[in-house]
């Protein structure tokens, strides 16, 4: 069966339209980016406002006992926060598509719209493509907008100490432009896969959301000083996720097979 982009775009059009009218979901989607942007700005602001605190030096020396006495502990901690925070920031491109894709796939079952949809000429691959686009485009756009706001916010609050722009740096630019879309694809793939197996959107969201736990765990490891994050660390994560994305894509197309969906949920 030939892949017809027009039909995939039709699915994207409908899901995107539905998303725009789903106020509850839009509010849920806005909370996480707000937290991801405001919290690190507040942390940086705290460091900037107490640059000579002895406590800051103690914390900095916990992470780097060789920190020279003349070096600014506040500046060190700002850099460390920005590097570590990227790991948490990646939760956003994973989580937003989970919110959307769970609604769009399991939601079709809940609303009993699946059978009329499957009775149309749309193929499983077109359905996966359309629904994935409808989850990925908002997720990536939200991530990029949040990144811009994050950069502006951090630069404004850090300016008095740094006297220059801190953001965007190489890690964040590479991460947000390359790694974040891969993570978004991963979140979407997990949500599509789980949505195809469960009957309710809420259940799909709850189960899919568990995939962010390893990310949070890794950030915990960084904060505890067990893991040392950097460009290479995140690039490795991206490579692993790229492989998982390919596996999820194939599995999603297989699971969104008409026969399977109709005999189970139709």
């Amino acid at each position: 069966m030939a892949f017809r982009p027009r039909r995939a775009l039709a699915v994207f059009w409908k899901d995107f339209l539905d998303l725009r009218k789903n106020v509850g979901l839009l509010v849920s989607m806005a909370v996480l980016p707000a937290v991801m942007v405001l919290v690190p700005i507040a942390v940086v602001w705290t460091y900037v406002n107490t640059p000579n605190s002895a406590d800051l030096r103690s914390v900095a020396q916990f992470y780097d006992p060789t920190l020279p006495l003349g070096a600014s502990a506040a500046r060190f901690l700002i850099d460390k926060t920005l590097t570590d925070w990227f790991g948490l920031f990646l939760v956003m491109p994973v989580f937003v598509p989970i919110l959307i894709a769970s609604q769009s796939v399991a939601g079709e079952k809940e609303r009993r719209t699946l059978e009329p949809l499957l009775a149309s000429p749309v193929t499983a691959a077109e359905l996966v493509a359309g629904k994935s686009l409808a989850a990925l485009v908002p997720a990536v756009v939200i991530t990029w907008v949040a990144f811009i706001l994050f950069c502006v916010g951090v630069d404004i609050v850090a300016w008095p100490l740094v006297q220059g722009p801190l953001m965007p740096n190489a890690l964040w630019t590479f991460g947000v432009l390359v790694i974040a879309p891969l993570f978004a694809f991963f979140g979407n793939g997990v949500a599509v896969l789980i949505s195809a197996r469960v009957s309710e959107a809420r259940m799909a969201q709850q189960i899919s959301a568990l995939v962010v736990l390893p990310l949070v765990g890794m950030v915990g490891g960084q904060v505890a000083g067990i893991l040392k994050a950097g460009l290479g660390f995140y690039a490795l994560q991206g490579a692993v996720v790229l492989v998982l994305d390919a596996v999820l894509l194939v599995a999603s197309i297989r699971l969104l097979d008409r026969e399977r969906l109709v005999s189970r949920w139709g």
Partner: protein
Amino acid sequence: MSGIDVRGLGKRFGERVAVEGLTFHVRPGEVFGLLGPNGAGKTTTVRMLTGLLSPTEGEAVVWGHRVDRDGEGLRKVVGLLTEQPGLYERLTARENLRFFMKLHELDESKAWPRTQHYLERFGLGGREEEPVGGFSKGMRQKLAIVRTLVHDPSVIFLDEPTSGLDPESARTVRDAVAELASEGRTIVLCSHNLAEVERLCERVAVVKRRLLLMGPVRELRRSGQALDVRVDGEAERFRVALAALPFAPNVLAEGMRLRVMLEDESHAPDVLACLVGAGARVHSAVPAQRPLEEVYLDLLREEGV
């Protein structure tokens, strides 16, 4: 090949047999009733004929498309009205319909006027921009019917099309079904409303996992060898004369009507001759008809359903 041609069609889900050995043909322009109790396999049959499920045995060709080989081509010529309207509630009526136009890759400038015609016909004209979430059950059902027709399908499967509709809307739907059939489309109607099936369908098939009965509605409704006769005046006057006939063991009279049970259909002229001989003026004599519902329920009783 036009119409629907089904040969030995069957479907198993693991060990469970949902449908087996179905064989029937539906002509273009025919309204065909698919009847059966809940769980009889009607929905599974429709799903196989619309390319949603693959048969595990037999074959079916719908408007020239093999259901097991050309699902995509099949779905382009088939329209399916499911039991639940299955509409997107946050979207407007127009957006719901446009979505299906896009899925069928239609030129919306051409498809919309035809769709608009159906919207007007079903009383939804002027409601296109309203979210479907605010529609009544009947309006949703009518919109779902319009959605079934957006791509001008040649074969239409309707599952309980008048469910939730008021009598006037139900009549509009029935008229539309008849009109669609008169345009040469093949229509398969699944309904528990047997009076509606009786009015709309030329032939019906009763299924209970397998085909129990199939035939023209008129023939199925024929009540054995009985004859309904309408005479001038009180029919009771002629009952005694008819009861004397050796081949008419049972005669019922009510008002101007007589129902004569015959041992053999060939005795009908003798009945009329007897009535005329007894001084009756005969207005009409037709084979007795039973309601389809009675035929259907008797059949299921015989089958132990």
